[in-house]
């Protein structure tokens, strides 16, 4: 609870993206991390319930229709309830393939539905104005793509099985390969609801903010005492690359009129108060002209 109290005291960062401003409440970010996985699991459980096995029938029958249309295979959808398998594909000359909830691809739809529903809305009125429309669009398009890709996956697998490949060889490999579509969905989702990726970056910024403040405070105290600052925390404050740090820091210190002695940055006494002022800015050492 102490962590949440500390976070709520921090001045909230604002992320600007595509001419829109994104500010999220801490509550909405927590809701995303907890709500998305729980809701995804609950939606999956709902469709894994026997009363919802109409979905199995629709998927099996559509697959069989396309198998017979494209390959003239003579495949059939058979209703034979036993345990978790209610439907099976009957393939001529091969043993039947039993169908379960995982074969519908609903698990992928559930994960994205959970994420899309719980993606936080920006507190900026312009950015959140059409969020419901964008979320609905993302939800429908991602669900349709997953559904269609899943049927294509089954058509390919069952056709390979029909022509003689071992089911064990093609089942897991093609199923895993078809999951590449999730990457495409993430990209599409970012087009319509950039709030998801931005909320992850936002959380990172929010969590690292107390650490940044602590670092600045330590540097400030050291400069007040000895007119010196350690180079390691300065690198982090100035967000300089580790590889090019020694080169960058010397040109930077020359610009501001500081010197480097060993692992320390030495600030002339007359420049110490200005150093602290620049250090404590929201964007440290950013000149006004920048």
């Amino acid at each position, binding site marked *: 609870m102490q962590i949440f109290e500390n976070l709520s005291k921090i001045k909230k960062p604002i992320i600007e993206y595509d001419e829109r401003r994104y500010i999220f409440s801490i509550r909405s970010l927590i809701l995303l991390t907890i709500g998305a996985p729980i809701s995804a699991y609950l939606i999956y459980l709902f469709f894994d319930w026997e*009363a919802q*096995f*109409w979905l199995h*029938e*629709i998927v099996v029958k559509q697959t069989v229709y396309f198998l017979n249309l494209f390959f003239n295979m003579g495949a059939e959808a058979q209703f034979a309830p036993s345990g978790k398998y*209610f439907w099976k594909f009957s393939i001529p000359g091969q043993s039947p393939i039993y169908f379960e909830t995982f074969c519908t691809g609903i698990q992928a739809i559930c994960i994205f539905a959970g994420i899309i529903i719980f993606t936080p809305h920006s507190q900026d009125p312009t950015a959140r104005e059409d969020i419901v*429309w964008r979320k*609905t669009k993302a939800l*429908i398009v991602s669900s349709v793509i997953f559904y269609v890709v899943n049927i294509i996956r089954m058509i390919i697998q069952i056709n390979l099985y029909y022509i003689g490949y071992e089911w064990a060889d093609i089942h897991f490999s093609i199923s895993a390969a078809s999951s590449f579509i999730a990457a495409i969905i993430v990209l599409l989702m970012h087009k319509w609801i950039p709030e998801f990726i931005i909320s992850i970056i936002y959380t990172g910024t929010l969590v690292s903010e107390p650490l940044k403040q602590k670092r600045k405070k330590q540097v400030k105290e050291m400069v007040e005492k000895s007119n010196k600052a350690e180079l390691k925390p300065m690198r982090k404050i100035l967000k300089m690359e580790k590889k090019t740090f020694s080169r960058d820091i010397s040109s930077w210190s020359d610009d501001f009129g500081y010197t480097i002695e060993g692992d320390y940055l030495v600030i002339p006494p007359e420049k110490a108060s200005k150093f602290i002022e620049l250090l404590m800015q929201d964007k440290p050492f950013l000149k006004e002209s920048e």
Partner: protein
Amino acid sequence: MKEFTLKKIFVWLMLTINLLFAFVIGLTIPLLESESNFNLGFVMIPLLVILNYVIVDRYHYYLKHTKRNEEELDANI
């Protein structure tokens, strides 16, 4: 005005597709062999009702923006 007419046609198209979805669901239910075939309607129709609201909300959004643009145009004149 032309732009708004296009948006109106888009919303009309969306509502028509939504009605067609409802029709297809109604047509599919008696064809299903599963014991729980009616659940297809119980699950999908509420989703279509929500989708209907989202489309109407979008129409409201377009109206609001067109009105705002017209007001800005009048103010400039």
